[in-house]
């Protein structure tokens, strides 16, 4: 059993929902990024998603786009992010997934990406522009070593829900709204029906992400799902904080608050 499965099993036994935190790797720079991520872990996140920045992040809203541009401007590369994971892995057992776009993986080489990710301590990947229809080669290369989490959206048909639920490993990433990533004021009314439909077709853990920005929303979502995914809200906090100390302090407080509410 890998780290992701173990974590969800453990939380389920405790009757708890996973807090899944997304952060762009190497953001706001390579020095500070490991400190921020460590503080996210220490403040109670259960699962980490670490982004590899990409020039054309078309599933992302303005917040993650800016983080991606900033990291690229800092010169952050795929090996840098692997190295970041390697260093985190030395003293953390938290499940770590890489989230990035397919061209980054494809260009690196499917086998090489799998090897390097696995050897540095990555447990799985989330690729927002790779639906199962295009994933055969990737799954063939990675299946022994990395879980691939597929995404479902409110627009997914019943047929696709079945297909994707069956293809997804680790958990199923349900996009809470019809749109791109980014903090939103309120959540979609149709979310409970969508999640119920997913849950009726699978026993795999279901994570919900996109648009979740407050501990109150996280609590609402935790009633529906096995995992609550928060990303843009964390990056917004880092953007707003003036000093490094403030960035770490604000992010830690936010994660602790969310964890407590859930």
């Amino acid at each position, binding site marked *: 059993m890998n780290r992701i499965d173990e974590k969800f099993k453990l939380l389920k036994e405790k009757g708890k929902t996973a807090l899944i935190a997304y952060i762009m790797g190497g953001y706001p720079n390579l020095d500070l990024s490991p400190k921020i991520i460590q503080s996210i872990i220490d403040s109670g996140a259960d699962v980490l998603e670490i982004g590899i920045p990409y020039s054309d992040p*078309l599933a992302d809203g303005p917040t993650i786009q800016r983080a991606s541009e900033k990291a690229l401007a800092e010169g952050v590369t795929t090996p840098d992010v692997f190295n970041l994971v390697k260093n985190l892995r030395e003293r953390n057992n938290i499940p770590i997934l890489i989230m990035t776009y397919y*061209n980054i993986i494809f260009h*690196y080489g499917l086998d090489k990406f799998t090897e390097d990710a696995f050897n540095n301590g990555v447990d799985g990947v989330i690729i927002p522009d790779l*639906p199962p*229809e*295009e994933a055969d080669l990737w799954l063939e290369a990675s299946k022994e070593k990395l879980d691939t989490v597929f995404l479902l959206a409110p627009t*997914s048909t019943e047929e696709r829900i079945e297909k994707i639920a069956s293809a997804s490993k680790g958990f199923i990433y349900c996009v809470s709204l*019809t749109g791109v990533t980014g903090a939103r004021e309120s959540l979609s009314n149709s979310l409970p029906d969508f999640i119920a439909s997913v849950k009726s077709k699978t026993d795999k853990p279901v994570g919900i992400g996109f648009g979740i920005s407050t501990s109150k929303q996280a609590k609402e979502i935790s009633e529906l799902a096995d995992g609550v995914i928060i990303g843009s809200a964390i990056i917004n906090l880092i953007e707003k904080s003036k000093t490094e100390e403030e960035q770490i302090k604000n992010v830690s407080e936010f994660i602790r608050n969310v964890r407590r509410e859930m």
Partner: protein
Amino acid sequence: MSPEFFLPDKEGHYGEYGGKYVPETLMAALKELEEAYNKYKDDDEFKEELNYYLKDYVGRPTPLYLAERLTNLLGGAKIYLKREDLAHTGAHKINNTMGQILLAKRLGKKRIIAETGAGQHGVATATVAAMFGLECVIYMGEEDIARQAPNVFRMKILGAEVVPVSSGSKTLKDAMNEAIRDWVTNVKTTHYIIGSVAGPHPYPMIVRDFQIIIGKETKEQILAKEKRMPDYIVACVGGGSNSMGIFYPFLNTDVKLIGVEAAGLGLETGKHGASLEKGSKGVLHGSMSYVLQDEFGQIQEAHSISAGLDYPGVGPEHAYMKDKSLVTYVGITDKEAIDAFKLLSKTEGIIPALESAHAIAYLNNLAPGLSKDKIIIVNLSGRGDKDVQTAAKVMGFSL
């Protein structure tokens, strides 16, 4: 008929290229579009309506014109121009937007979005949206807005909202990212009219099919005028829609097909838009094709004096045609394009779009070395009124 004529396969692949590399949110809409297209493409009422508008509104068929003075000047093969610049709105782009808006109407979509580089596709989209009374939003990079001001104004006059895109390189690639993000958000009410043979399946197929009319007319016209097929067809390639349209009916014949990419400041300078000649396999905007990218798969900024060719990707079927050697791809620099822009204006009284000027420029390399009984057809994909500012700047005129 050879297998090429049956591509893409049912998942939208052209060999290893094409496909649907998009967020899950869009998968249902792509399927809906594909089903609608498959239903209507052979539907008599749809075809009749499209033909009616193409004839009476767009002004098709566009002429195939013998450029006698240019032929004499270059002193070799006989040169014909397929006059897509004479189509309504001044470029071939409207062939596709007209087809797609008729599909959008049948899908019950009330809102139209599009990306644009040179502004020709934006204008062509705003035009058909105005004609059918649909809301229209056009995404355009800030840099392109600055260099294509006349087209920005045209879109606004036509009632479209032009949204400036300031991310990344602030050009066509970023406009397309933003249009996709809009579509992900508003997919239930909105139809996205992609302007080139790029993007996720079924777009490359749909746009190709709506542009094939260029090649079909060309074939009939040249057979009527010369009683034979041409020897060469030359067209510029950015995303690749005008070239695909004129090439397609001539694939697997003896006609040599030449696609002209933007060599920008030179193919060896790294500042160009030549994805097929200098790029490598990768995924951009929903399909696998050739892209300009760095060693880590970050998409590179393209460079061309022509906004319509300033794109770091190319339609997936072009990638396939390159690998199969069905088309030869070459590069023309900014400078050569500007020279051709002047040349065609002076010898034929036709100011070409800077995109099309790339195809014209290649005649200097091709025509003089051929005997006078050979025939070359150039797709003159658009007119150059939109480019006068850019050209004036390069030529040292202040307007």
